[in-house]
Structure formats: structure tokens, C-alpha cells
């Protein structure tokens, strides 16, 4: 959890700094919302995710739409932190060693944060490749988005069911 909180703090700091460097109302509001998300993380991951999603929507409409994926990644990490938190609460109610659970979950959060960073880097790389191509029409971007949506559906629906045991 600490690693996810650190990642979210870093993202929030970037959004805040960019909002201050190019102060427009939407960008400032988006950075303020991301700060709210960071503050709400301790209380509720879902609330933090909602704040980051709102920040994403504002950034998309602002003059800095390239920062929007950062808010998107933050929203995902908030949702993941919420799930981890719920899981941790269940484990602590069952008498698990809280320090060991916290350490293990922190490592898990770190790995997921790194995977998110990798996915973010890949998506930015794809954008810059697409942009560097000559005369790229905007329709191509939408086509790529549609392809990515199809890929999501295929990956999420095509997953095999492995162990069908009761929940721990």
C-alpha cells in the first residue's frame, strides 16, 4: 500500500507542477482534484479513483490532454489499492500477522505500480510513434482506440478459469 501511495503522490506532484507551470482553470482544477484523490486514498480507494477520473475528464478538456493518462493510471492504482485494502482488512480480521501482510501487500503494490508505469510508457511510446508518422489523420487514432478496446474485451473474456475453490 505504501508503494501505491508513493506512486499516487508522484503522479499528483507531476499534475500539480504542470498545473502551476501552465496555469489554466481546468488544469488547476484537475490538479486540485488529484490532490483530493490522494488525500481520500486513506479513507476510500473508490473515492480516490472517482477524484482521479474527474481529474482525467478535466485534463482531457484542458490544454494539456497529454497528462490525462497519468490521472487514468492513478485511478487504476486507487481502485487496486481499494481492493488490496479490503483484502487486508479481511485478513487482519482472521488474525493474520499485520506486519507481514503489510510487507507482502506493499511489494505487490510496487509490482503493480511498475506494471502501470510500463503500460503508461508503452502507450506514450505508441502515441509518439503515431504522431511522428506523416499526415496521420485523427481517424487512425480512433481506429487504434477501437482496436485496443477489442483487445481488452478479448483478453478479459478469454481468460481461462483455473481454480474454482472457495475464497480464503
Amino acid at each position, binding site marked *: 500500500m505504501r508503494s501505491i501511495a508513493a506512486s499516487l503522490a508522484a503522479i499528483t506532484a507531476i499534475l500539480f507542477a504542470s498545473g502551476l507551470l501552465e496555469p489554466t482553470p481546468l488544469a488547476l482544477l484537475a490538479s486540485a482534484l488529484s490532490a483530493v484523490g490522494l488525500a481520500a486514498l486513506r479513507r476510500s480507494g473508490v473515492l480516490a479513483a472517482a477524484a482521479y477520473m474527474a481529474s482525467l475528464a478535466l485534463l482531457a*478538456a484542458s490544454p494539456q490532454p497529454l497528462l490525462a493518462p497519468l490521472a487514468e493510471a492513478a485511478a487504476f492504482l486507487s481502485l487496486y489499492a481499494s481492493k488490496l485494502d479490503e483484502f487486508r482488512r479481511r485478513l487482519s480480521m482472521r488474525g493474520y*500477522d499485520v506486519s507481514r501482510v503489510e510487507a507482502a501487500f506493499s511489494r505487490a503494490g510496487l509490482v503493480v505500480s511498475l506494471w502501470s508505469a510500463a503500460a503508461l510508457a508503452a502507450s506514450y511510446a505508441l502515441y509518439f510513434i503515431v504522431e511522428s508518422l506523416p499526415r496521420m489523420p485523427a481517424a487512425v487514432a480512433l481506429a487504434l482506440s477501437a482496436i485496443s478496446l477489442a483487445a481488452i474485451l478479448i483478453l*478479459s473474456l478469454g481468460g481461462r478459469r483455473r481454480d474454482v475453490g472457495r475464497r480464503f
Partner: protein
Amino acid sequence: MEAIARYAVALEVLALALAVFTRRLELLPAAVFPAALLAAFHLAYGREWRVSVSADVEQRTLRVEEPLTLRIEASSNVPGLLLYSALDDRRLVAVEPPTGALYLSGRSSASATALAGLPGRYEPPDLEWAFYPLTLSRPVRGRTPVGEVEVRPYLAKAGLRAAARSLGAPRAPGPLAGPHSAEFLEVREYRPGDPYKLINWKAYARTGALYVNEKLREGHSTLYIVLDAGSHCRADSVGHGASMALSVAHAAVDARLPVGLLVVPDGVSLPPTDSPAGLKLIREALMRLDLKPPRRSPAPPRADTYIYISCRPRPEYIEELCLRARRVVVIEVSPARGPFAEIARLLAERRGRVLCADKLVWSPPLEPPSRALARL
């Protein structure tokens, strides 16, 4: 993968809606990110998972109060969280929560520790584990056997003779020591006072020295140890009590004082003996203890002295013992651990009189058993 996929789809729908609404190419990374993230999870977990967990006890033969350490080695070909439950056994003393968690990527290890409590040979419960992938979806479960361990009561040797003498003067073998039963124990050297009918004449013919056939003694002119092994006692109380019983028996045999054993509420009874073979029987009986639910304890045979060892001595039972013996000594075993152990020990009543019996409180492992023996 379900929860992660739901999150990705939700974010993708939002990003696509924003891209369509704003018609900006800069939102392409936002539209690609959820798919890339899901692809990363899919690459990690698309293959078959292989998880193996092994458990190894570092020391399989140990004494009461010694730490029993279980080494857990786990490996998997995908990253995830391993939750485990180990050494969750009422016969052991927990020094840390029996359940734990471990981040697993490739090979990892952890350890679980408990203190040896109840003496005996037994197999602690299997190591139960569940491996959760980072998607926190359905886990893979398994059990790994731990194997048998042997916990022995310890023997306090310091000050044993003095302690034994303080129990009562040892008497010469004879009619006062009680009648000999038909149960053969061992062949030992003749001691003055041994009945002639017990002399082993064949051994005398072979060696020229007098030997007697030692047999178990019955009767009432003896010391009886009454050990409470009820399930209302913690395993370490019973373990330390058994160790104290063994030490007292050793002291008595050393001083040639016939000593018997009664385990309550189980009812296991060994007739009095002052021979090493009898002591061996006592040691074996102490290795077969089981925490049984408390019920009306049987009264031991008549004896000169009773030593009643319990975690919670019952007054009515002490009264019953007083009716059958000249002297009753009650040892209340009250283990003290943790940061407030010393305070708890100081607050406990160290020595006093309960009804007709002398009572002393013993707080192992804070107080060495030899000191408690010397206080008898």
C-alpha cells in the same frame, strides 16, 4: 482477472468517450493505457501457474520451552501473494501469529516459530497455504505436511538431593515401602533390607555378587505426584508441570524414596517405585500426555506425601488429597512471558497455605525449575 478487467474496461470506456467528445489525438495514450495494462497482466498470468511449497522443521527432537521453527520454502512461476497458516496447534505455544503472508516471485522463504509445549510424539497440523495472483482473483490452495516432532520434558538436576530430602526422609526398603507387586522391573544390586525372597540366585551363582529382582511397589508409604493435564491448562503449563514431575521423580528415586505418578483427569497411574526402570516408566508416561477435558479427577492411592502440580489447583481436590495423606504440596504452574512477565511473577503469591496444603507458585521460564525444586 475479473476485477482488473472491469477496472480496465471502465477506464477504457471513459477514455474513448473523452476521445470521441474532444477529438484530440493527444488522448491516444489514455485510450491505449488500459489495453496495455491488461496485456501486461495477461502476459504474466496467461500461462499455467506452478506453485510449490515445502515445509521443513529445523529440529525435530526438542525439550519443553525450546523453539520449534518451521522453514517455509515457496516458489512459483508467476508473481503473487502466498498466505499461510502454520503450527496452529494447541499443543504448542504461539509466540507469533500462526498465519502470515509472503510476496512470492520466483523463490521466497519464510519461517514460523512456536514453543514446544506439551510433551509427546505428535505431528503438528499441515501447513495450509493459498496463493493469490496479483489480480487477486481465485487462489490456488494446498497443504504441506510438517512431519512428526518429539517434545521431551526437561530434567532439572540442580539441588535435586536437597529437594528430595526436604520431601521426607528416605526409608530403607522393607515392609514400610509397601508390598512388592508381581510386575518385574529390573535386576539390581542387593541393598540391605531387601527381602531374601527377591534375591536372584542364578545371578549370584554366575557372578558371586548378590542381585535382586526389583519389582514395582504398592502401598501407601510413598510419595505420589499428581499431575493435572486437563484441557483447561495451556500446553506450556502442562509441559512445565510434566518437567517438574520428572525432576521430582528423579530426585525421589535418587534418594531411594518410592514415587508414583497419577495423571488427572486422564487417570493414568503408575505405582510407586524407587528404581531407575520405574523412573523410565514415569518418563514414558509423561511422553503420552493428552489435554483431556476436565472432569472429576480420580483420587490417588494413599501415600505419605502428595505433590499436586496444576495450572489451576482445585480446592475440593486438594481437600480430597489432604484426607488421604499426611502432607500435600501444591505447585501452581503459572508461566509468565512477555514484557510484563516479571511484574506478573512478583504479584503472584509465591508461597502460602491453601486449606491443608503448602502451595507455591512457579513461573517458568522466568524462574528456573531448580530454584522451584529447592523451594519444595
